[in-house]
């Protein structure tokens, strides 16, 4: 049993990549995967505008949208996590209809700039959270692996003290292993969270683009 647990712990530690902790860097090399990233999907640090937007460029609008009170307020509202995106069409239509013809596309583009920046920011926090979680799992896998090493050593020790220590460790190990497995299975759920934000970004981008001339 110890051998199989040890093997599993070793495999897990390999999968988790027990290497130097790295945090997500916007400029990191695109073809060097972060070893702490635990998800099946390849890590993409930021969703570029061009993925969801074929309208006017948002270059230079990174801060401008926050200075436009109406746009800023609508961005905060429609990008909040509990906002029902099915309602976005009505609110964006109302915003669009209030604009003067000459300014409409510019203000809709400003709105999109705010939406993508806000959602990318939230997405980045999610990515950092997932990486931190995986690093924690990796550290746990290392500790379990060390304890399994000790259990293997104790198996060869005939003393009463060793046997008692081994019995206690086995008992604790079962609980630790179960907790580890539960945390491990949660990773799959965590990995779906960036996708939810990307989906929301796509819906909002398409809705805004619909009202462009």
């Amino acid at each position, binding site marked *: 049993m110890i051998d199989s647990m040890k093997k599993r712990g070793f495999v897990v530690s390999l999968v988790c990549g027990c290497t130097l902790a790295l945090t997500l860097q916007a400029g990191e090399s695109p073809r060097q995967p972060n070893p702490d990233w635990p998800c099946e999907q*390849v890590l*993409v640090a930021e969703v570029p505008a*061009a993925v969801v937007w074929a309208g006017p460029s948002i270059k230079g609008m990174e801060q401008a949208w926050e200075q436009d009170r109406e746009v800023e307020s609508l961005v905060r509202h429609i990008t909040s996590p509990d906002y029902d995106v099915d309602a976005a069409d009505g609110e964006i239509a109302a915003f669009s209809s209030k604009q003067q013809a000459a300014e409409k596309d510019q203000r809709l583009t400003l709105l999109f700039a705010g939406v993508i920046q806000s959602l990318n920011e939230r997405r980045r926090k999610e990515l950092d959270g997932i990486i931190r979680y995986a690093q924690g799992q990796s550290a746990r896998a290392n500790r379990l692996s060390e304890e399994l090493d000790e259990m293997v050593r104790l198996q060869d020790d005939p003393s009463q003290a060793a046997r008692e220590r081994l019995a206690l460790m086995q008992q604790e190990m079962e609980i630790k292993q179960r907790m580890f497995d539960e945390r491990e299975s949660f990773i799959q759920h965590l990995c779906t969270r960036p996708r939810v934000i990307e989906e929301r970004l796509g819906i909002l981008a398409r809705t805004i683009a619909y009202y462009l001339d």
Partner: protein
Amino acid sequence: MLFMSSRCCSSIRPRLITMAFIIAMLAAEAVQAYTVYVSSEKDNTITVIDGESLKVLQKVAVGERPRGIALSKDGKILYVCTSDADHIEVLDLETLKVTHVLPSGPDPELLVLGPEGKYLYAANEDDNMVTVVDVEKRQKVIEIQVGVEPEGMGISPDGKWLVNTSETTNMAHFINLETLKVEDNVLVDQRPRVAQFSNDGKQVWVSSEIGGTVSVIDSATRKIIKKIGFEIPGIHKESIQPVGIQLSRDGTKAFIALGPAARVAVVDTAKLEVEKYLLVGQRVWNLAFSPDEKRIFTTNGVSNDVSVIDVERLKVKKSIQVGRLPWGVVVRP
């Protein structure tokens, strides 16, 4: 009377011609009628789309996490890799009911059917095997040991070779289907996903998701002829992740799905260069031609839709909402 008759016929003739034209058009449409099937791994469904009207006809419930799908040679059956159910489901396309399951080994993701229609080949990511299944006898024939995390599979038009990619070892394994042995390994870029033979069997195209390239391999020499790279203004390299590949029957064009870049690259196969990028839905994954090759359907995993590309105009014609996390797509003539 003669006058009447003449009036009568002169007014009817154009109508007859019009009707004949309509009937001919309807006949032509009937010949081209086809159906699109899309697996959705989150909803556990197969979405059925009418290929002409582009309307969703039905969503059919199948087992857990349907991903790779393949049509039987007679077009009556859809084989579905239900990855979390650890088997292949057999969907009768007349009744739209799952009639039975086939053994597949654990976590089947992708499958291909041999040109004879008898053997299915399924990649088992978890145990580094390709499982060969006899669909008539409904049993596993053999498991072939391949590289770590097998993924994509392409079968040569003559049915003699299976190319399987392994995600971790970054190789395309050439498996001789007579001896069932791996005879060659070609190193490609990181995380190879899909392998696709050209229709003349002379080339194998292999997409590398992390590497961001497609390797075009000479089937005879097993040498890489060219690695096709992709550059899209405004999109970081990390977002460009080639996955699905479709080559036109006449061999002049290839269409490559670029994942989170939300683009399909159109490649001139003579020059092996990208001639155009088409904006489709988010995280485009797999593709399938219509029978007349006038359209391509793409599955878009984040926007939960299928993009319809007009192949002649190289424009995206429409988006169709399907089940969540669309993955595989096939077209039934």
